[in-house]
């Protein structure tokens, strides 16, 4: 069903500077390719630039040099509205601190990116969102407000939200960083399942070596350079 060697994301010679307080280069000629269906982790010490890299790859940070292709399309220099649309349609996010909208229920949180995309009617999306929650065994909590859920539950809802628009790529920034061992394992298994069953492409930034061990490919970074795993 999926061509495994088709590139989903390509980074070519990405340089990134911070200017405050002094000019420092945090990314140095970072290049790699992620193909469809891969479960990739980026590891490295704190401050090696892995999170910075993730924000660039996610299109939220546009202040860098080099070339970035998502789904074989060059995206540098594109208008921010185009990037918003791209994020909505093709990228799913999972953050360390869950980042659900506390004003809404779990179901609504999953629903919102779908409503934003506007491809399906609300009824259809509700059905889909419920299906996604079922994958993570969260259907019983669907109507709870986000702030009534535990950390692990929130993270599962966040993953369900990342999946609602059937994205090309899921990105995670330390998705298990804030969870205990048990919940971290649950989340990891969910990712594993997604690649195995749905051929979902996943890119995770983590400093948890155990998590990284379980992924298909590890990209290791040090001092703003990729040292292995291109």
């Amino acid at each position, binding site marked *: 069903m999926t061509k495994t060697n088709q590139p989903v994301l390509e980074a070519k010679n990405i340089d990134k500077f911070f200017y405050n307080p002094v000019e420092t280069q945090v990314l140095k000629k970072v290049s790699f390719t992620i193909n469809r269906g891969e479960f990739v982790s980026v590891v490295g010490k704190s401050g090696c630039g892995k999170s910075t890299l993730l924000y660039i790859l996610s299109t939220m940070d546009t202040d860098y040099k080099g070339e970035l292709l998502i789904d074989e399309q060059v995206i540098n220099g594109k208008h921010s509205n185009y990037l918003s649309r791209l994020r909505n349609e093709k990228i799913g996010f999972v953050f360390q601190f869950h980042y659900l909208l506390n004003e809404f229920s779990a179901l609504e949180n999953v629903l*919102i990116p779908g409503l934003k995309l506007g491809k399906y009617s609300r009824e259809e999306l509700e059905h889909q969102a419920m299906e996604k929650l079922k994958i993570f065994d969260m259907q019983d909590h669907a109507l709870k407000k986000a702030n009534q859920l535990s950390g692990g539950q929130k993270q599962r809802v966040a993953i369900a939200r990342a999946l609602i628009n059937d994205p090309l790529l899921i990105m995670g920034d330390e998705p298990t960083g804030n969870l205990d061992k048990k919940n971290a394992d649950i989340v990891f298994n969910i990712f594993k399942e997604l690649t195995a069953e749905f051929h979902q492409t996943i890119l995770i930034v983590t400093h948890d070596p155990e998590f990284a061990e379980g992924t298909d490919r590890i990209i290791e970074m040090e001092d703003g350079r990729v040292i292995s795993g291109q």
Partner: protein
Amino acid sequence: MKWSLILELARALMFARIKQTLVAAVGVTFSITMFVALLGFMNGLNTLLDGLVLNRTPHIRFYNQIKPNPNQPIDLSPEFGKGVNVIRSIKPSNSRLAIYNSEPILKTLNADPRVRGVSAKIAAQVFYNVGSIDLTGVVNGIDPEKEIDLFAFQDYVTVGNPEDLLQTNSIILGKGAADRMLADIGDVIQITTAQGNKAQLKVVGYYQSGLADFDNANSFASINTVQKMMGEPASYLTDIQVKLHDFNQAPAFANEYREIFEIEADDIQTVNAQFETGSSIRTLISYAVGITLLVVSGFGIYNILNMMIYEKLDTIAILKAIGFNSQDVKRIFITIALSIGFIGGTLGLLFGYLSCLGIERIPFETDALPTVKTYPIDFSSKYYFIGGIFSLVTTYLAGFFPARKASSVDPVDIIRGK
């Protein structure tokens, strides 16, 4: 972008900070309430005060002015006719106050489609004889039915029935004059006309306009009574008062007939220009106060939205991360501001209307205004319309800058910052 989603997000954000939102809405409600109540009250008062004069003032008044004849014999002489002649001390000659040919003039005016009504009048200078004292005054000979129809005469007759004037030799005395003469209803008073004729008239009512000077001197009787009193024929009239359908046509109408009838014609705009000025300045002041209130509540909304944005930076960042663009975020916050404005404004209009109803019930009795028992209110929909528009405009402006700030939030800064 679907507006239903924007509305849903705006609603959720508002409900998350329901107290602050309510405070902002109450601010708008209060200012719109005050705006509507203030303008309604102020304009009610304006209308009343203007009405004091304007209701009783004809749109055009035709009369004969006693003045020297502009055609002097010297202008006809071949020797001096071409020069500029200056003649000192010319006296009016053979002039009379009565309008010539009053019958055809009345007929012509009545036939004009622009005219709502015509009422003839005689103003007679008289002395009220009180014992050995003579008080000067004016007896106005009027047609009571027409005065009632055109000039709300009955509103100013505080005691008695204006139609009683139709009986000959009856008089409605000005309140001030009656007080000075100690004349009660049913008493017979004696007056002397400027020509020296004496007449006895029965008091059937009191007239009180609210303008004390006017009430001290003026009394009313029927045209017939005054004509008889003065020993003049039935065609004797000194004033013809005209009310038009459209009061703005008065100057043109006056000019037209001044030429045709060759008599003086004063229009209301020329005579009462100062009332317009007073009203417009009062209106201006009430608008200024109302708008000030709205601007203040606008600052309230501005502050509350700014606070909300600081508290909801996470939400804004996550919305941007999952694909909402800057315009969407801006729209969400503008929607919040406009919702506050709309809800606050609607309630404000309602409370404004209610407080107008309340003010209208407050007793307000003064000798100067015999017909007024409570405070006057203008319920014109104009003020509600303006109030509604202003509430939306100020809240939009108050929301614009915070919304722009929210739209420029960089999600990376927020998400990294944790």
